[in-house]
């Protein structure tokens, strides 16, 4: 077990280095093709060449490799690795703020969003899946099957925009016209975007949008798993032991059925992080996802490389924890 964890941790190194290099190369290419990102600071005005050069040098965009299209910029990558791993310095953005500070500001929003999304998909998804799976072929079963296919087929950016327009704007406006509805609900929860005054309530709907697709997958996975296990021999044994129906299902069937579901939920944390990029942009949430999108647009390579590298680490750690959790849930699994 210990050796397994160490081996997995060692595998992190090439993954992280590889991702960093890929990101580094892509952001460098972007600069090589679209020009010095520092010019964005000046908008339409043409900056004095001396000032432009000074700022470019200060922000680390002065390396000549950045003006040679297709150059790998290995030297720059070496510098970046050195500052990240030896000085824990991820660099600064155009406005000279530390990337670590930017992440620290943005992370709480993304975490809240993720917690809402994962809770929503786990609770509702598992409940729907269990109800559908226990009575295969029933009305509930068809309802769950059809609605999940519908959710899975709609891309998250379409779903997000539609929900924002209809729930946040139209339905929200109706609610805001009613005096008796508390503000937390009318202007907080049913707002078209994130509201700093309601840091939790206004994240509920974005979180639900973020969790929607995975909720459908969770429900289907639970449904299949329950249907498969409900006919298992050990469930028959549990019945023959004279246990109550509640215990036969709630303990003997569910425990086995949830193993694949929990594995999926764990891996899904990574996917939800990626989904947060889209959801945060649609709902204007000042989280990690929006930070990456904005920085990618302005070509701030240090922010993109730094933040995505951190995300990669989060996903890797989450996957490792899921694999370890798997062994806890299913005693037949052993890691040597």
């Amino acid at each position, binding site marked *: 077990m210990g050796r397994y964890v160490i081996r997995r941790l060692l595998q992190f190194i090439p993954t992280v280095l590889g991702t960093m290099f890929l990101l580094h190369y892509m952001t460098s290419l972007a600069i090589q093709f679209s020009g010095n990102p520092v010019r964005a600071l000046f908008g339409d005005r043409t900056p004095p060449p001396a000032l432009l050069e000074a700022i470019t040098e200060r922000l680390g965009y002065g390396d000549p490799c950045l003006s040679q299209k297709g150059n790998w910029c290995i030297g720059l990558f070496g510098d970046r690795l050195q500052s990240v791993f030896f000085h824990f310095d991820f660099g600064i953005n155009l406005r000279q703020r530390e990337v670590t500070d930017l992440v620290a500001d943005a992370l709480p929003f993304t975490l809240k969003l993720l917690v809402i999304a994962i809770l929503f998909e786990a609770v509702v998804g598992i409940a729907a899946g269990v109800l559908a799976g226990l009575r295969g072929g029933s009305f509930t079963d068809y309802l769950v099957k059809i609605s999940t296919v519908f959710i899975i087929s709609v891309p998250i950016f379409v779903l997000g925009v539609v929900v924002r327009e209809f729930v946040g704007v139209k339905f929200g406006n109706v609610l805001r016209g009613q005096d008796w509805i508390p503000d937390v609900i009318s202007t907080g929860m049913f707002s078209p975007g994130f509201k700093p005054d309601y840091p939790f309530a206004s994240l509920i709907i974005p979180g639900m949008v973020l969790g929607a697709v995975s909720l459908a997958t969770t429900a289907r996975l639970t449904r299949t798993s329950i249907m498969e296990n409900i006919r298992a021999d050990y469930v*028959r044994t549990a019945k023959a032991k004279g246990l109550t129906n509640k215990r036969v299902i709630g303990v003997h069937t569910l425990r086995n059925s949830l193993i694949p579901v929990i594995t999926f939920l764990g891996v899904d944390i990574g996917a939800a992080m990626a989904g947060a990029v889209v959801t945060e942009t649609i709902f204007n949430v000042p989280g990690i996802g929006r930070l990456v999108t904005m920085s990618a647009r302005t070509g701030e390579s240090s922010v993109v490389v730094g933040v995505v590298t951190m995300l990669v680490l989060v996903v890797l750690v989450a996957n490792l924890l899921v694999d370890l959790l798997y062994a806890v849930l299913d005693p037949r699994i052993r890691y040597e």
Partner: protein
Amino acid sequence: MTDVNVKLDALPGLDPNALPLEVKNLQVEFRTRNGIAHAVNGVSFDLRAGETRAILGESGCGKSVTAQAIMGILDTPPGFVTGGEILYRGVDLLKLPESERRKVRANRIAMIFQDALSALNPVFTVGFQLAELFRKHRGMSRQDAKARAIELLDLVKIPAARQRVNDYPHQFSGGMRQRVMIAMALALDPEVLIADEPTTALDVTVQAQIMALLAELQQERNMGLVLITHDMGVVADVADRISVMYAGRVIEEAGVDDIYASPAHPYTKGLLESIPRLDLKGQELSAIKGLPPALTNLPSGCAFNPRCRYAQDVCRKDPAPSLLQVSPSRTAACHFWKEVKGDE
């Protein structure tokens, strides 16, 4: 510590002098898309305390379904009990409400299954699965229940029970797993044990050990055993009385010696002739021709007639006779039982 042998509140109508198990004219059907399959078609047998009743038949003849109907663990749908009576000490289990019926399971009638690996829950320790019975049926604390679980593992001769109680089913060998199953079935001291092919998944040496263990425990407790099997060898060793089933019916019923000496139904006879024998080494093994019929499409007349070498026109036209008295203690459902029996 609570005493396991304290019996539950008496069932209404319970007669302590009645037989521990009596099945009368049981009918079970499976409603499938391809039509109704009459899996059990008027099965009757009884069981005395301490007796071993073997139910013998090939796969799909309805013996496991009979067992599940007695336990009340048929998958419904598609399986439905449509008629007959299952009497436990005079109480018809089919008429009991589910809450009462549930208390009969494991407490009074218990069951062990064929494949102990899949019949034990893979994600719980055997200790948990044994202790669960005491906790849920006897209201014992976790600690007491676990102590009882260890005693049970000792009882079924699992070495180092105190350590093994925390192991998971996959950590046991096949024979040890079947011992755990037996321990689980005997936990609440039932009067009737239904063993559905308990040794089929085991190799021959382990089979013998398990059957010996079952016989020993049965004798200690004066427990009735319904042994469901297709293994003629196992039956010869341990059974007192035998019911042979074919296509959902009992076609012959007799004491074990009578059946082996002179079968009165051509199907039983075919089964006995298909046992490999040392003294007939080198000769071709005789087998029953053909396949068992599909339960959704039984042949007209006697269900066995297409495979029967004694079949006459009457067998193809008229339904098979109900069990005919062959001798005071045995019956057979064949028009020509005399010929079958005499033709040795």
